[in-house]
């Protein structure tokens, strides 16, 4: 269970589990997750809805719902365990060292305040004059490619198009030059041409500021294009992790292989019957023993019913948790 070799990590998650107390019992949303984000790299997370992506993000920024509980694990960010920090210390990190871009820009920007007001407000930590803060906002808007930023500071979110709103959210998130940016499906609300613009913008800003990005998306094509590393989640577990090239070219967990097969973009021949993964995610309240994917896996063996596969380094930092890999 060693970290990826050679590079230093900005975020290291080890053995993290998160449970929610519900009426039906304890829901194990995330179980024993390991995740590394090397300094200055872009890591993508893919997985079905309900696989625990949002819980994972909320745990990193420590904004979990009140019924959540963390039985074990650590989230090490810049040499401190985020789970052990006091709320005051966490506030100093959130938005400054660690920031986030949400899915829907229209609901993350405040509709009743001008963009300029919102952008100067979030600089409350800096001991600068108002005009310096204003200048900083103008610079940030210019760096995300908003034309004529000075005059646009007076405008309100509804006066911007969807692509522009998302650029503004990115400008605000990067304003304090964080070392880790979390992007939660930032392009789902946009069409293909704007999606490409946002991806290129993130790439450019990332290399300029040398921050790391944790990028969550349903869109496999976007992940392939943007990320160096990719993490595949299924039913609250990380089942595979490695460089994008390794994972997309040589998917080793049966779930990853199936997921990639299902992408209509990969199917060159026109078809009326698209591939799917039959079956359902197991109930996270009463998990059966053994591997979580076994009921949908076409390569399931006897051992999968009884024993949970361990997190194995399959090849040079390409991690998989599957009995098939352990066997070889």
């Amino acid at each position, binding site marked *: 269970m060693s970290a990826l070799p050679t590079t230093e990590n900005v975020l290291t998650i080890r053995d993290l589990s998160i449970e929610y107390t519900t009426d039906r019992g304890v829901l194990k949303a995330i179980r024993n997750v390991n995740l590394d984000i090397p300094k200055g790299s872009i890591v993508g997370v893919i997985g079905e809805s309900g696989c625990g992506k949002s819980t994972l993000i909320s745990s990193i920024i420590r904004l979990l719902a009140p019924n959540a509980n963390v039985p074990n694990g650590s989230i090490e960010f810049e040499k401190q365990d985020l789970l052990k920090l006091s709320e005051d210390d966490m506030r100093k990190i959130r938005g400054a060292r660690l920031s986030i871009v949400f899915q829907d820009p229209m609901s993350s920007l405040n509709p009743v305040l001008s963009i300029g007001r919102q952008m100067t407000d979030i600089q409350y930590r800096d001991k600068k004059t108002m005009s310096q803060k204003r200048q900083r906002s103008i610079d940030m808007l210019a760096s995300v490619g908003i034309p004529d930023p000075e005059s646009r500071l007076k405008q309100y979110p509804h006066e911007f198009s969807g692509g522009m709103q998302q650029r503004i959210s990115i400008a605000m998130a990067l304003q304090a030059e964080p070392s880790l940016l979390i992007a939660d499906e930032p392009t789902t609300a946009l069409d293909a041409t704007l999606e490409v613009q946002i991806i290129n913008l993130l790439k450019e800003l990332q290399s300029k500021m040398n921050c790391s990005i944790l990028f969550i998306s349903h869109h496999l094509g976007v992940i392939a294009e943007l990320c160096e590393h990719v993490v595949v989640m299924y039913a609250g577990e990380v089942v595979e992790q490695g460089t994008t090239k390794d994972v997309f070219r040589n998917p080793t967990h049966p779930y990853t292989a199936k*997921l990639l097969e299902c992408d209509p973009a990969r199917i060159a021949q026109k078809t009326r019957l698209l591939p799917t993964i039959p079956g359902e995610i197991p109930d996270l309240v009463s998990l059966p023993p053994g591997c979580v994917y076994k009921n949908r896996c076409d390569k399931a063996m006897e051992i999968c019913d009884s024993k949970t596969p361990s997190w194995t380094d399959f090849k040079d930092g390409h991690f998989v948790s599957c009995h098939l890999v352990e066997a070889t």
Partner: protein
Amino acid sequence: MSTVLEIENLRVRFRVQSPLVALLKRNEDPYIDAVRQVSFKIEEGQTFTLVGESGSGKSTLALAVAGILPVADGSIKFNGDDVTKMNSQDLMDYRKQVSMMWQNPVGSLSPRMSVGGLITEAYKIHGLKDRDREVEASRLLQMVGLPKHFSERYPHQLSGGQARRVGVARALALSPKLIIADEPTAGLDVSVQGEILNLLNKLQDDLGVSMFVITHNLNIVRHISDRTAIMYLGRFAEQGPTDDIFANPRHPYTLALLSANPEPDPETINKDRIELKGEVPSLMNRPRGCEFHTRCPYVQENCKEQKPAKKQSSDNHSYNCHYPLAGS
């Protein structure tokens, strides 16, 4: 094969200034055209797909076709009868034959009604008292591949994919001739997306229903649709048989959309991509000449002044461009 729906020169507009303000400001045209000069046909048993970015007027067009929004100009002929001239009794009848699958699957279901109540609500509204609603509910649930006992459930107990299936069941309740599906797979992961599309394809094969699908996911268009139109600023930039559009795009915007579609392979990225600069112009302030000229990579002098006329190549493939790309 007969034509189910024929739209001619459709215009849908929204008032942006109150009559009094418009009068005082001497604004003779206090409207924006959300849909302008749109003409197309849907044949029986075929799928027509509409692609375009957010704000291009796709949903407005869908609502107008469903008879929900008033039409300013043009005609909507359903089996030869003009919907725009119908009285309320005829419209009621029309809405029995055309049904809608809404964009937000959970949001479009009333949280206070059970699934069974939701999918048979149409019988109540249309006064079909002779139908046994329980029997109908289980018949419809079976058609969309959900177990019978789901009719007792409430929307919050459904996953995204299940909620979509309920949406499909609702749309099927009155055995319509045409289903309008607004973003039927938005927010779904690839496997569930495949399931929903397979379901729609199967229902189309079994029931011979025509479909009008709105999406911005180009990967699925190729697999499900017979004809495709690309919308920009409320107009069709191009429309034609789907295979032909993908093989020989004639409008630069179509080409940009197609090339912007990220490939799910980390090694074949960025080849021949056309990146569009700038943002979509506002509907309040449409560009002169060709409306795409502000972002077009191949813009010429007369594009800025002259409106391009509709051109037609073989096979009902038409486009609005002064300098169409050479088809291969």
